[in-house]
Protein backbone atom coordinates (compact mmCIF):
# COMPACT_ATOMS: atom_id res chain seq x y z
CA UNK A 1 0.00 0.00 0.00
CA UNK A 2 2.78 2.40 1.01
CA UNK A 3 4.67 1.45 -2.15
CA UNK A 4 1.62 2.18 -4.27
CA UNK A 5 1.19 5.60 -2.69
CA UNK A 6 4.87 6.39 -3.24
CA UNK A 7 4.57 5.27 -6.85
CA UNK A 8 1.45 7.35 -7.43
CA UNK A 9 3.10 10.36 -5.81
CA UNK A 10 6.14 10.03 -8.08
CA UNK A 11 3.82 9.75 -11.05
CA UNK A 12 1.87 12.83 -9.99
CA UNK A 13 4.95 14.96 -9.43
CA UNK A 14 6.42 13.89 -12.76
CA UNK A 15 3.15 14.58 -14.58
CA UNK A 16 2.78 17.97 -12.87
CA UNK A 17 6.25 19.04 -13.88
CA UNK A 18 5.76 18.01 -17.49
CA UNK A 19 2.30 19.56 -17.54
CA UNK A 20 3.69 22.89 -16.42
CA UNK A 21 6.49 22.52 -18.94
CA UNK A 22 4.12 21.90 -21.82
CA UNK A 23 1.92 24.82 -20.73
CA UNK A 24 4.78 27.31 -20.75
CA UNK A 25 6.15 25.96 -24.03
CA UNK A 26 3.15 27.56 -25.76
CA UNK A 27 4.28 30.99 -24.56
CA UNK A 28 6.39 31.75 -27.64
CA UNK A 29 5.02 34.51 -29.84
CA UNK A 30 4.04 33.55 -33.35
CA UNK A 31 5.89 35.10 -36.25
CA UNK A 32 3.79 37.66 -38.13
CA UNK A 33 2.70 36.77 -41.62
CA UNK A 34 5.02 38.70 -43.92
CA UNK A 35 4.70 38.84 -47.67
CA UNK A 36 7.22 39.63 -50.34
CA UNK A 37 6.29 43.27 -51.15
CA UNK A 38 6.47 42.41 -54.85
CA UNK A 39 3.67 39.86 -54.40
CA UNK A 40 1.25 41.87 -52.28
CA UNK A 41 -2.37 41.62 -53.44
CA UNK A 42 -3.71 45.18 -53.55
CA UNK A 43 -7.45 45.54 -53.88
CA UNK A 44 -8.35 48.62 -51.82
CA UNK A 45 -6.81 51.65 -50.15
CA UNK A 46 -6.03 49.82 -46.91
CA UNK A 47 -4.17 47.02 -48.68
CA UNK A 48 -2.27 49.59 -50.76
CA UNK A 49 -1.17 51.40 -47.60
CA UNK A 50 -0.19 48.09 -45.94
CA UNK A 51 1.77 46.97 -49.01
CA UNK A 52 3.77 50.20 -48.96
CA UNK A 53 4.24 50.33 -45.18
CA UNK A 54 5.33 46.68 -44.89
CA UNK A 55 7.50 46.92 -48.01
CA UNK A 56 9.40 49.84 -46.52
CA UNK A 57 9.34 48.33 -43.03
CA UNK A 58 11.24 45.25 -44.17
CA UNK A 59 13.21 46.58 -47.14
CA UNK A 60 14.46 50.08 -46.35
CA UNK A 61 18.13 49.91 -45.53
CA UNK A 62 18.51 53.10 -43.45
CA UNK A 63 16.32 52.35 -40.42
CA UNK A 64 19.45 52.23 -38.28
CA UNK A 65 20.00 55.97 -38.73
CA UNK A 66 16.76 57.36 -40.16
CA UNK A 67 14.84 59.70 -37.82
CA UNK A 68 11.40 58.66 -39.09
CA UNK A 69 9.17 56.84 -36.58
CA UNK A 70 7.74 54.28 -38.97
CA UNK A 71 5.47 52.65 -36.36
CA UNK A 72 3.92 56.05 -35.63
CA UNK A 73 3.19 56.39 -39.36
CA UNK A 74 1.32 53.08 -39.20
CA UNK A 75 -0.76 54.28 -36.26
CA UNK A 76 -1.49 57.63 -37.86
CA UNK A 77 -2.26 56.71 -41.45
CA UNK A 78 -3.78 53.21 -41.46
CA UNK A 79 -7.07 54.68 -40.12
CA UNK A 80 -6.95 57.33 -42.85
CA UNK A 81 -6.88 54.71 -45.60
CA UNK A 82 -9.50 52.64 -43.83
CA UNK A 83 -11.74 55.74 -43.79
CA UNK A 84 -11.22 56.15 -47.52
CA UNK A 85 -12.38 52.58 -48.06
CA UNK A 86 -15.50 53.19 -45.95
CA UNK A 87 -16.37 56.31 -47.94
CA UNK A 88 -15.74 54.51 -51.19
CA UNK A 89 -18.02 51.69 -50.13
CA UNK A 90 -20.76 54.16 -49.18
CA UNK A 91 -20.51 55.82 -52.57
CA UNK A 92 -20.59 52.50 -54.35
CA UNK A 93 -23.63 51.36 -52.34
CA UNK A 94 -25.53 54.63 -52.85
CA UNK A 95 -28.31 54.70 -55.43
CA UNK A 96 -27.80 58.17 -56.89
CA UNK A 97 -24.32 59.64 -56.87
CA UNK A 98 -23.92 62.81 -58.84
CA UNK A 99 -20.98 63.46 -61.07
CA UNK A 100 -19.91 66.29 -58.79
CA UNK A 101 -19.93 64.00 -55.75
CA UNK A 102 -17.89 61.38 -57.60
CA UNK A 103 -15.34 63.98 -58.75
CA UNK A 104 -15.15 65.40 -55.24
CA UNK A 105 -14.29 61.97 -53.88
CA UNK A 106 -11.58 61.48 -56.50
CA UNK A 107 -10.09 64.84 -55.47
CA UNK A 108 -10.33 63.87 -51.81
CA UNK A 109 -8.62 60.58 -52.51
CA UNK A 110 -5.78 62.25 -54.44
CA UNK A 111 -5.30 64.85 -51.69
CA UNK A 112 -5.31 62.14 -49.02
CA UNK A 113 -2.71 60.11 -50.91
CA UNK A 114 -0.53 63.19 -51.47
CA UNK A 115 -0.70 64.26 -47.83
CA UNK A 116 -0.37 60.82 -46.25
CA UNK A 117 2.49 59.48 -48.35
CA UNK A 118 4.14 62.89 -48.45
CA UNK A 119 4.17 63.16 -44.66
CA UNK A 120 5.24 59.54 -44.16
CA UNK A 121 8.23 59.92 -46.44
CA UNK A 122 9.19 63.56 -45.91
CA UNK A 123 12.14 62.89 -43.58
CA UNK A 124 13.39 59.62 -45.06
CA UNK A 125 17.10 60.13 -45.65
CA UNK A 126 17.75 57.79 -48.58
CA UNK A 127 18.50 60.27 -51.34
CA UNK A 128 18.01 57.62 -54.01
CA UNK A 129 14.43 57.15 -52.87
CA UNK A 130 11.97 57.43 -55.74
CA UNK A 131 8.40 56.34 -54.99
CA UNK A 132 5.69 55.93 -57.57
CA UNK A 133 2.17 54.89 -56.65
CA UNK A 134 -0.60 54.57 -59.18
CA UNK A 135 -4.06 53.28 -58.57
CA UNK A 136 -7.32 53.54 -60.46
CA UNK A 137 -10.76 54.68 -59.38
CA UNK A 138 -13.09 53.99 -62.26
CA UNK A 139 -11.78 56.03 -65.15
CA UNK A 140 -9.66 58.21 -62.88
CA UNK A 141 -6.05 57.62 -61.87
CA UNK A 142 -4.62 58.48 -58.48
CA UNK A 143 -0.90 59.13 -58.76
CA UNK A 144 1.80 59.86 -56.24
CA UNK A 145 5.46 60.52 -57.06
CA UNK A 146 7.86 61.27 -54.25
CA UNK A 147 11.58 61.92 -54.11
CA UNK A 148 12.00 63.08 -50.53
CA UNK A 149 15.74 63.55 -50.80
CA UNK A 150 16.32 65.07 -54.19
CA UNK A 151 13.06 67.02 -54.49
CA UNK A 152 12.28 67.96 -50.87
CA UNK A 153 15.53 68.09 -48.90
CA UNK A 154 17.99 69.39 -51.49
CA UNK A 155 16.20 72.72 -52.08
CA UNK A 156 16.38 73.51 -48.37
CA UNK A 157 20.16 73.79 -48.47
CA UNK A 158 21.41 77.38 -48.43
CA UNK A 159 23.70 76.81 -51.45
CA UNK A 160 20.97 75.17 -53.55
CA UNK A 161 20.66 76.36 -57.13
CA UNK A 162 18.15 75.21 -59.69
CA UNK A 163 20.31 75.80 -62.72
CA UNK A 164 22.37 73.21 -64.50
CA UNK A 165 26.00 73.65 -63.52
CA UNK A 166 27.39 72.20 -66.74
CA UNK A 167 25.12 73.94 -69.18
CA UNK A 168 27.10 74.86 -72.27
CA UNK A 169 30.06 72.83 -71.00
CA UNK A 170 30.85 71.27 -74.37
CA UNK A 171 30.71 74.65 -76.07
CA UNK A 172 33.32 75.90 -73.61
CA UNK A 173 35.49 72.83 -74.17
CA UNK A 174 35.25 73.34 -77.94
CA UNK A 175 36.34 76.96 -77.50
CA UNK A 176 39.30 75.84 -75.42
CA UNK A 177 40.33 73.53 -78.26
CA UNK A 178 39.93 76.29 -80.80
CA UNK A 179 42.13 78.57 -78.66
CA UNK A 180 44.84 75.92 -78.40
CA UNK A 181 44.40 75.55 -74.63
CA UNK A 182 43.65 71.84 -74.97
CA UNK A 183 44.64 69.07 -77.39
CA UNK A 184 43.62 65.50 -78.16
CA UNK A 185 39.97 66.25 -77.54
CA UNK A 186 37.47 63.42 -78.02
CA UNK A 187 33.90 64.12 -77.03
CA UNK A 188 30.49 65.35 -77.87
CA UNK A 189 27.05 66.21 -76.62
CA UNK A 190 25.24 63.28 -75.18
CA UNK A 191 22.62 61.90 -77.60
CA UNK A 192 19.29 63.67 -76.93
CA UNK A 193 17.25 60.47 -76.92
CA UNK A 194 19.27 58.77 -74.18
CA UNK A 195 16.77 57.90 -71.47
CA UNK A 196 18.78 59.04 -68.45
CA UNK A 197 19.52 62.60 -69.55
CA UNK A 198 17.11 65.49 -69.89
CA UNK A 199 17.49 66.74 -73.44
CA UNK A 200 16.19 70.19 -72.63
CA UNK A 201 19.21 72.28 -73.38
CA UNK A 202 21.75 72.30 -76.12
CA UNK A 203 25.04 71.07 -74.68
CA UNK A 204 23.22 70.06 -71.50
CA UNK A 205 25.40 66.98 -71.09
CA UNK A 206 28.82 66.24 -72.44
CA UNK A 207 31.26 63.36 -72.57
CA UNK A 208 34.76 64.63 -73.20
CA UNK A 209 38.39 63.76 -72.58
CA UNK A 210 41.38 65.86 -73.50
CA UNK A 211 44.74 67.14 -72.36
CA UNK A 212 45.85 70.67 -71.62
CA UNK A 213 49.01 71.92 -73.22
CA UNK A 214 50.88 71.48 -69.93
CA UNK A 215 49.71 67.89 -69.30
CA UNK A 216 46.52 68.07 -67.24
CA UNK A 217 44.26 65.24 -68.39
CA UNK A 218 40.51 65.82 -68.04
CA UNK A 219 37.49 63.57 -68.20
CA UNK A 220 33.97 65.06 -68.22
CA UNK A 221 31.00 62.70 -68.02
CA UNK A 222 27.35 63.06 -66.91
CA UNK A 223 26.75 59.45 -65.92
CA UNK A 224 28.68 56.29 -65.07
CA UNK A 225 27.73 54.23 -68.11
CA UNK A 226 31.02 53.38 -69.78
CA UNK A 227 30.51 49.70 -69.06
CA UNK A 228 27.22 49.70 -70.96
CA UNK A 229 28.95 50.79 -74.18
CA UNK A 230 32.37 49.18 -73.92
CA UNK A 231 31.45 46.59 -76.55
CA UNK A 232 30.59 49.33 -79.06
CA UNK A 233 33.75 51.11 -80.24
CA UNK A 234 31.70 53.72 -82.12
CA UNK A 235 29.81 54.88 -79.00
CA UNK A 236 30.89 58.32 -77.81
CA UNK A 237 31.28 56.95 -74.29
CA UNK A 238 33.73 54.28 -75.48
CA UNK A 239 35.73 56.71 -77.59
CA UNK A 240 35.98 59.21 -74.74
CA UNK A 241 37.07 56.73 -72.09
CA UNK A 242 39.58 55.01 -74.37
CA UNK A 243 41.03 58.43 -75.26
CA UNK A 244 41.29 59.24 -71.56
CA UNK A 245 43.07 55.95 -70.83
CA UNK A 246 45.39 56.51 -73.84
CA UNK A 247 46.27 59.97 -72.55
CA UNK A 248 47.06 58.52 -69.10
CA UNK A 249 49.26 55.86 -70.71
CA UNK A 250 51.09 58.04 -73.22
CA UNK A 251 51.47 61.50 -71.68
CA UNK A 252 55.08 61.61 -70.50
CA UNK A 253 54.63 64.04 -67.59
CA UNK A 254 51.12 64.04 -66.28
CA UNK A 255 50.65 67.36 -64.49
CA UNK A 256 47.29 66.38 -63.01
CA UNK A 257 44.00 64.57 -63.64
CA UNK A 258 40.53 66.07 -63.39
CA UNK A 259 37.30 64.09 -63.17
CA UNK A 260 34.27 66.31 -63.78
CA UNK A 261 31.16 64.76 -62.20
CA UNK A 262 29.10 67.92 -61.84
CA UNK A 263 25.46 67.03 -62.36
CA UNK A 264 26.46 63.37 -62.63
CA UNK A 265 23.64 61.06 -61.55
CA UNK A 266 25.79 58.00 -60.92
CA UNK A 267 25.50 54.59 -62.57
CA UNK A 268 27.60 51.45 -62.77
CA UNK A 269 29.90 50.64 -59.85
CA UNK A 270 32.18 48.79 -62.25
CA UNK A 271 32.93 51.99 -64.18
CA UNK A 272 35.48 52.78 -61.49
CA UNK A 273 37.69 50.21 -63.24
CA UNK A 274 37.62 52.30 -66.40
CA UNK A 275 38.12 55.62 -64.60
CA UNK A 276 40.18 55.43 -61.40
CA UNK A 277 41.67 51.93 -61.37
CA UNK A 278 44.06 52.74 -64.26
CA UNK A 279 45.64 55.46 -62.07
CA UNK A 280 46.60 53.34 -59.03
CA UNK A 281 49.11 50.57 -58.50
CA UNK A 282 47.81 49.08 -55.27
CA UNK A 283 44.43 48.32 -53.72
CA UNK A 284 42.63 51.30 -52.23
CA UNK A 285 40.04 51.04 -49.51
CA UNK A 286 37.34 53.61 -50.23
CA UNK A 287 34.54 52.86 -47.76
CA UNK A 288 32.30 50.21 -46.26
CA UNK A 289 28.88 48.86 -47.13
CA UNK A 290 26.39 46.64 -45.40
CA UNK A 291 22.96 45.37 -46.27
CA UNK A 292 20.02 43.82 -44.53
CA UNK A 293 20.27 40.29 -43.21
CA UNK A 294 16.64 39.80 -42.22
CA UNK A 295 13.18 41.32 -42.11
CA UNK A 296 13.77 43.30 -38.93
CA UNK A 297 14.47 46.98 -39.36
CA UNK A 298 17.76 46.59 -37.47
CA UNK A 299 18.84 43.26 -39.00
CA UNK A 300 22.13 43.98 -40.75
CA UNK A 301 25.03 41.93 -42.03
CA UNK A 302 28.64 42.91 -41.30
CA UNK A 303 30.29 46.04 -42.67
CA UNK A 304 32.17 44.94 -45.78
CA UNK A 305 35.16 46.95 -47.01
CA UNK A 306 34.89 48.39 -50.51
CA UNK A 307 38.24 47.84 -52.19
CA UNK A 308 39.20 49.00 -55.66
CA UNK A 309 41.97 46.97 -57.30
CA UNK A 310 44.37 48.44 -59.88
CA UNK A 311 43.35 47.89 -63.49
CA UNK A 312 45.27 45.33 -65.48
CA UNK A 313 46.78 48.19 -67.48
CA UNK A 314 47.62 50.82 -64.91
CA UNK A 315 50.04 53.66 -64.27
CA UNK A 316 50.47 55.18 -60.84
CA UNK A 317 49.70 58.89 -60.98
CA UNK A 318 51.40 60.91 -58.25
CA UNK A 319 50.26 64.25 -59.63
CA UNK A 320 47.09 65.81 -58.16
CA UNK A 321 43.88 63.98 -58.95
CA UNK A 322 40.91 66.32 -58.71
CA UNK A 323 37.18 65.71 -58.74
CA UNK A 324 34.80 68.54 -59.66
CA UNK A 325 31.33 68.09 -58.24
CA UNK A 326 28.24 70.01 -57.24
CA UNK A 327 25.02 69.63 -55.25
CA UNK A 328 23.56 67.38 -57.97
CA UNK A 329 26.47 64.92 -57.96
CA UNK A 330 25.04 61.72 -56.55
CA UNK A 331 25.67 58.01 -56.07
CA UNK A 332 28.75 56.85 -58.03
CA UNK A 333 29.77 60.48 -58.48
CA UNK A 334 30.00 60.68 -54.68
CA UNK A 335 31.74 57.33 -54.37
CA UNK A 336 34.36 58.49 -56.87
CA UNK A 337 34.76 61.68 -54.84
CA UNK A 338 35.25 59.68 -51.64
CA UNK A 339 37.65 57.31 -53.40
CA UNK A 340 39.78 60.23 -54.60
CA UNK A 341 39.72 61.76 -51.11
CA UNK A 342 41.39 58.59 -49.76
CA UNK A 343 44.39 59.21 -52.05
CA UNK A 344 47.27 61.35 -50.72
CA UNK A 345 47.17 63.35 -53.96
CA UNK A 346 43.38 63.54 -54.16
CA UNK A 347 41.30 66.69 -53.92
CA UNK A 348 37.59 67.43 -54.35
CA UNK A 349 36.59 70.90 -55.51
CA UNK A 350 32.95 71.89 -55.49
CA UNK A 351 29.87 71.82 -53.33
CA UNK A 352 28.64 69.40 -50.68
CA UNK A 353 27.04 66.73 -52.83
CA UNK A 354 23.50 65.33 -52.80
CA UNK A 355 24.06 62.52 -50.28
CA UNK A 356 22.79 59.47 -52.14
CA UNK A 357 25.64 57.17 -51.28
CA UNK A 358 23.94 53.78 -50.90
CA UNK A 359 24.57 51.46 -53.85
CA UNK A 360 21.55 50.08 -55.68
CA UNK A 361 21.50 46.52 -56.88
CA UNK A 362 18.03 46.52 -58.43
CA UNK A 363 17.65 42.83 -57.65
CA UNK A 364 15.34 42.45 -54.66
CA UNK A 365 16.42 38.83 -54.27
CA UNK A 366 20.04 39.79 -53.53
CA UNK A 367 19.24 40.55 -49.89
CA UNK A 368 15.43 40.75 -49.94
CA UNK A 369 15.59 44.48 -49.52
CA UNK A 370 15.95 47.60 -51.54
CA UNK A 371 13.87 48.41 -54.59
CA UNK A 372 10.53 46.67 -55.02
CA UNK A 373 7.71 46.82 -57.57
CA UNK A 374 4.31 45.18 -57.33
CA UNK A 375 2.71 46.94 -60.27
CA UNK A 376 0.88 49.52 -58.14
CA UNK A 377 3.79 50.66 -55.99
CA UNK A 378 7.29 51.11 -57.37
CA UNK A 379 9.99 51.99 -54.88
CA UNK A 380 13.53 52.61 -56.01
CA UNK A 381 15.95 52.90 -53.12
CA UNK A 382 19.37 51.85 -51.91
CA UNK A 383 20.16 48.18 -51.37
CA UNK A 384 23.24 48.84 -49.25
CA UNK A 385 24.19 51.41 -46.66
CA UNK A 386 27.54 53.18 -47.13
CA UNK A 387 29.96 54.58 -44.58
CA UNK A 388 33.24 56.36 -45.22
CA UNK A 389 36.61 54.92 -44.30
CA UNK A 390 36.50 57.11 -41.20
CA UNK A 391 33.19 55.47 -40.21
CA UNK A 392 30.81 58.30 -41.02
CA UNK A 393 27.42 57.70 -42.62
CA UNK A 394 26.80 60.64 -44.93
CA UNK A 395 23.51 59.60 -46.49
CA UNK A 396 21.42 62.72 -46.90
CA UNK A 397 24.43 64.89 -46.08
CA UNK A 398 26.84 64.40 -48.98
CA UNK A 399 30.57 64.57 -49.57
CA UNK A 400 32.21 67.69 -48.17
CA UNK A 401 34.69 69.14 -50.66
CA UNK A 402 38.30 69.83 -49.81
CA UNK A 403 38.04 73.16 -51.61
CA UNK A 404 34.60 74.70 -51.60
CA UNK A 405 33.43 76.23 -54.86
CA UNK A 406 29.82 77.33 -54.91
CA UNK A 407 27.70 77.68 -58.01
CA UNK A 408 26.61 81.27 -57.47
CA UNK A 409 24.63 83.34 -59.98
CA UNK A 410 27.96 85.01 -60.90
CA UNK A 411 29.52 81.65 -61.67
CA UNK A 412 26.46 80.72 -63.72
CA UNK A 413 26.63 83.96 -65.69
CA UNK A 414 30.31 83.37 -66.38
CA UNK A 415 29.41 79.92 -67.70
CA UNK A 416 26.84 81.53 -70.00
CA UNK A 417 29.58 83.87 -71.19
CA UNK A 418 31.92 81.01 -71.96
CA UNK A 419 34.05 80.70 -68.81
CA UNK A 420 33.98 77.61 -66.61
CA UNK A 421 35.31 79.16 -63.39
CA UNK A 422 35.19 75.88 -61.43
CA UNK A 423 37.29 74.13 -64.06
CA UNK A 424 39.70 77.06 -64.00
CA UNK A 425 39.91 76.72 -60.21
CA UNK A 426 40.91 73.09 -60.65
CA UNK A 427 43.61 74.09 -63.13
CA UNK A 428 44.87 76.69 -60.65
CA UNK A 429 45.01 74.17 -57.81
CA UNK A 430 46.94 71.66 -59.92
CA UNK A 431 49.39 74.27 -61.21
CA UNK A 432 49.99 76.18 -57.97
CA UNK A 433 48.80 74.01 -55.09
CA UNK A 434 46.70 76.94 -53.86
CA UNK A 435 43.93 75.69 -51.63
CA UNK A 436 42.58 79.11 -50.57
Amino acid at each position, binding site marked *: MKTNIRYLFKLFVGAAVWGVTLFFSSC*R*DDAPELLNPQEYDINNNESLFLAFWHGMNNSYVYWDVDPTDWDAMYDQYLPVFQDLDEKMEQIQMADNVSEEEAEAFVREMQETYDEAFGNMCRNLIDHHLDINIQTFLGNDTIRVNLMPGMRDELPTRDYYHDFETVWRLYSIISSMEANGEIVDLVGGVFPPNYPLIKPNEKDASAFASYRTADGIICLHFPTFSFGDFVADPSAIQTQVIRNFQKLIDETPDVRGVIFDVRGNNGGNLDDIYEILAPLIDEDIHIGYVRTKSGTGR*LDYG*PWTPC*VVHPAENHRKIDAPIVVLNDIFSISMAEMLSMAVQTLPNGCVIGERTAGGTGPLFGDFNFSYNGAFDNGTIQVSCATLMWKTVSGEIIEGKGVTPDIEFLQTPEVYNAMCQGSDLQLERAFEYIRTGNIE
Partner: protein
Amino acid sequence: MRYDSRGGFTMGVPVQYDFTDWFGLRAELAYVAKGQSVHRTHSFEGLKSDIRNHYLQIPVMANFSFGGTRLRGFVNAGAYVGAWLASIEKGINVNVFGHLTDAELLNENTTYISDGKLDFDARRDNRFEAGLTGGLGIRYLLLPRMEVSLEGRCYYALTDQQKDYMYFHTPRYNTTFALLAGISFLLGK
Protein backbone atom coordinates in the same frame (compact mmCIF):
# COMPACT_ATOMS: atom_id res chain seq x y z
CA MET B 1 18.33 31.48 -48.88
CA ARG B 2 18.69 28.57 -46.44
CA TYR B 3 18.93 28.69 -42.64
CA ASP B 4 20.77 25.94 -40.77
CA SER B 5 21.55 25.22 -37.16
CA ARG B 6 25.17 25.04 -35.98
CA GLY B 7 26.84 22.55 -33.70
CA GLY B 8 28.78 23.81 -30.73
CA PHE B 9 30.36 23.07 -27.39
CA THR B 10 28.98 23.14 -23.87
CA MET B 11 30.68 22.80 -20.51
CA GLY B 12 29.40 23.21 -16.98
CA VAL B 13 29.63 22.55 -13.28
CA PRO B 14 26.54 20.89 -11.79
CA VAL B 15 25.37 20.67 -8.19
CA GLN B 16 22.60 18.27 -7.14
CA TYR B 17 20.88 17.64 -3.83
CA ASP B 18 18.89 14.43 -3.52
CA PHE B 19 15.91 14.69 -1.19
CA THR B 20 15.06 11.02 -1.70
CA ASP B 21 16.58 8.21 -3.69
CA TRP B 22 14.33 9.17 -6.66
CA PHE B 23 13.98 12.97 -6.42
CA GLY B 24 16.53 15.73 -6.24
CA LEU B 25 17.14 19.32 -7.24
CA ARG B 26 19.90 20.14 -9.71
CA ALA B 27 21.50 23.39 -10.72
CA GLU B 28 24.37 24.10 -13.08
CA LEU B 29 26.58 26.93 -14.25
CA ALA B 30 27.17 26.19 -17.90
CA TYR B 31 28.70 27.73 -20.99
CA VAL B 32 26.76 26.94 -24.16
CA ALA B 33 27.79 27.80 -27.71
CA LYS B 34 24.69 28.38 -29.82
CA GLY B 35 24.47 29.58 -33.38
CA GLN B 36 22.98 29.56 -36.80
CA SER B 37 24.04 29.70 -40.45
CA VAL B 38 22.57 31.46 -43.45
CA HIS B 39 23.52 30.09 -46.85
CA ARG B 40 22.62 31.79 -50.13
CA THR B 41 21.39 29.60 -52.95
CA HIS B 42 21.04 29.60 -56.74
CA SER B 43 22.91 32.48 -58.35
CA PHE B 44 24.18 33.63 -54.96
CA GLU B 45 25.54 30.19 -54.02
CA GLY B 46 28.73 30.58 -52.04
CA LEU B 47 27.71 33.60 -49.99
CA LYS B 48 27.09 32.67 -46.38
CA SER B 49 27.14 33.83 -42.80
CA ASP B 50 27.94 31.65 -39.77
CA ILE B 51 27.09 33.12 -36.41
CA ARG B 52 28.30 31.81 -33.06
CA ASN B 53 26.53 33.06 -29.93
CA HIS B 54 28.21 32.49 -26.54
CA TYR B 55 25.88 32.04 -23.57
CA LEU B 56 26.37 31.51 -19.85
CA GLN B 57 23.38 29.63 -18.47
CA ILE B 58 22.03 28.49 -15.10
CA PRO B 59 19.49 25.68 -15.45
CA VAL B 60 17.58 24.66 -12.30
CA MET B 61 15.84 21.33 -12.65
CA ALA B 62 13.98 18.68 -10.75
CA ASN B 63 15.74 15.35 -11.14
CA PHE B 64 13.75 12.13 -11.14
CA SER B 65 15.70 8.89 -11.19
CA PHE B 66 14.71 5.26 -11.49
CA GLY B 67 16.38 1.88 -11.83
CA GLY B 68 18.94 -0.07 -9.86
CA THR B 69 21.68 0.84 -7.45
CA ARG B 70 24.55 1.17 -9.93
CA LEU B 71 22.79 1.90 -13.22
CA ARG B 72 19.92 4.34 -13.08
CA GLY B 73 17.97 6.32 -15.58
CA PHE B 74 16.93 9.88 -14.91
CA VAL B 75 14.76 12.68 -16.16
CA ASN B 76 15.48 16.37 -15.62
CA ALA B 77 12.81 19.02 -15.97
CA GLY B 78 13.00 22.66 -15.11
CA ALA B 79 13.90 26.09 -16.28
CA TYR B 80 16.99 28.11 -17.06
CA VAL B 81 18.20 31.65 -17.28
CA GLY B 82 21.07 32.75 -19.43
CA ALA B 83 23.18 35.69 -20.47
CA TRP B 84 24.25 36.31 -24.05
CA LEU B 85 27.94 37.12 -23.66
CA ALA B 86 29.23 37.64 -27.18
CA SER B 87 28.57 36.98 -30.83
CA ILE B 88 31.06 36.14 -33.58
CA GLU B 89 30.33 36.18 -37.30
CA LYS B 90 32.25 34.49 -40.08
CA GLY B 91 31.05 34.81 -43.60
CA ILE B 92 31.63 35.26 -47.29
CA ASN B 93 30.25 38.57 -48.56
CA VAL B 94 30.29 40.47 -51.80
CA ASN B 95 32.83 43.24 -52.42
CA VAL B 96 30.59 45.50 -54.49
CA PHE B 97 33.64 47.14 -56.08
CA GLY B 98 35.24 43.82 -56.88
CA HIS B 99 34.69 43.99 -60.65
CA LEU B 100 31.63 41.76 -60.69
CA THR B 101 30.85 40.09 -64.00
CA ASP B 102 27.96 37.89 -65.03
CA ALA B 103 30.35 35.03 -65.77
CA GLU B 104 31.75 34.70 -62.30
CA LEU B 105 30.07 36.27 -59.32
CA LEU B 106 32.42 34.96 -56.67
CA ASN B 107 36.19 35.04 -56.78
CA GLU B 108 38.93 36.45 -54.57
CA ASN B 109 38.41 39.93 -56.00
CA THR B 110 34.63 40.02 -55.63
CA THR B 111 34.33 38.56 -52.15
CA TYR B 112 35.26 39.62 -48.66
CA ILE B 113 35.77 37.13 -45.84
CA SER B 114 34.29 38.54 -42.66
CA ASP B 115 35.49 37.19 -39.33
CA GLY B 116 34.89 39.18 -36.23
CA LYS B 117 32.88 40.16 -33.22
CA LEU B 118 29.35 41.38 -33.79
CA ASP B 119 28.43 44.47 -31.83
CA PHE B 120 25.34 44.24 -29.69
CA ASP B 121 22.66 46.80 -30.38
CA ALA B 122 20.84 47.85 -27.20
CA ARG B 123 17.80 48.85 -29.24
CA ARG B 124 17.49 45.41 -30.74
CA ASP B 125 19.28 42.71 -28.76
CA ASN B 126 17.96 40.99 -25.67
CA ARG B 127 21.05 39.97 -23.68
CA PHE B 128 18.93 37.95 -21.25
CA GLU B 129 17.41 34.57 -22.06
CA ALA B 130 15.10 32.32 -20.10
CA GLY B 131 13.20 29.20 -20.90
CA LEU B 132 12.45 25.60 -20.16
CA THR B 133 14.92 22.78 -20.06
CA GLY B 134 14.59 19.05 -19.86
CA GLY B 135 16.68 15.99 -20.38
CA LEU B 136 16.77 12.22 -20.38
CA GLY B 137 19.83 10.25 -19.39
CA ILE B 138 21.54 7.41 -17.61
CA ARG B 139 24.13 7.39 -14.85
CA TYR B 140 26.43 4.67 -13.62
CA LEU B 141 27.98 4.44 -10.17
CA LEU B 142 31.59 3.79 -11.08
CA LEU B 143 32.97 4.03 -7.56
CA PRO B 144 31.22 4.46 -4.20
CA ARG B 145 31.52 8.23 -4.55
CA MET B 146 31.86 8.73 -8.25
CA GLU B 147 29.40 8.26 -11.05
CA VAL B 148 29.44 8.97 -14.77
CA SER B 149 26.43 10.12 -16.75
CA LEU B 150 25.21 10.65 -20.27
CA GLU B 151 22.26 12.92 -20.98
CA GLY B 152 20.38 14.27 -23.94
CA ARG B 153 19.03 17.70 -23.06
CA CYS B 154 16.96 20.41 -24.67
CA TYR B 155 16.99 24.13 -23.86
CA TYR B 156 13.77 25.73 -25.10
CA ALA B 157 13.93 29.50 -24.90
CA LEU B 158 10.75 31.36 -24.07
CA THR B 159 12.33 34.78 -24.44
CA ASP B 160 13.08 36.35 -27.81
CA GLN B 161 16.69 36.99 -28.83
CA GLN B 162 15.49 40.42 -29.85
CA LYS B 163 13.47 43.07 -28.10
CA ASP B 164 10.06 43.94 -29.43
CA TYR B 165 11.35 47.16 -31.01
CA MET B 166 9.12 47.35 -34.06
CA TYR B 167 5.63 46.48 -35.21
CA PHE B 168 5.37 43.06 -36.90
CA HIS B 169 8.65 42.01 -35.42
CA THR B 170 9.67 38.43 -36.28
CA PRO B 171 10.67 36.73 -33.01
CA ARG B 172 13.77 34.55 -32.81
CA TYR B 173 13.91 31.85 -30.23
CA ASN B 174 16.82 29.56 -29.44
CA THR B 175 16.10 25.84 -29.29
CA THR B 176 19.26 23.99 -28.34
CA PHE B 177 19.86 20.26 -28.16
CA ALA B 178 22.88 19.08 -26.20
CA LEU B 179 24.54 15.76 -25.53
CA LEU B 180 26.18 15.91 -22.11
CA ALA B 181 28.74 13.55 -20.67
CA GLY B 182 29.70 14.08 -17.06
CA ILE B 183 31.41 12.90 -13.94
CA SER B 184 29.84 13.54 -10.54
CA PHE B 185 31.43 13.27 -7.13
CA LEU B 186 29.04 12.23 -4.39
CA LEU B 187 29.39 14.14 -1.14
CA GLY B 188 27.61 13.68 2.17
CA LYS B 189 26.47 10.39 3.72
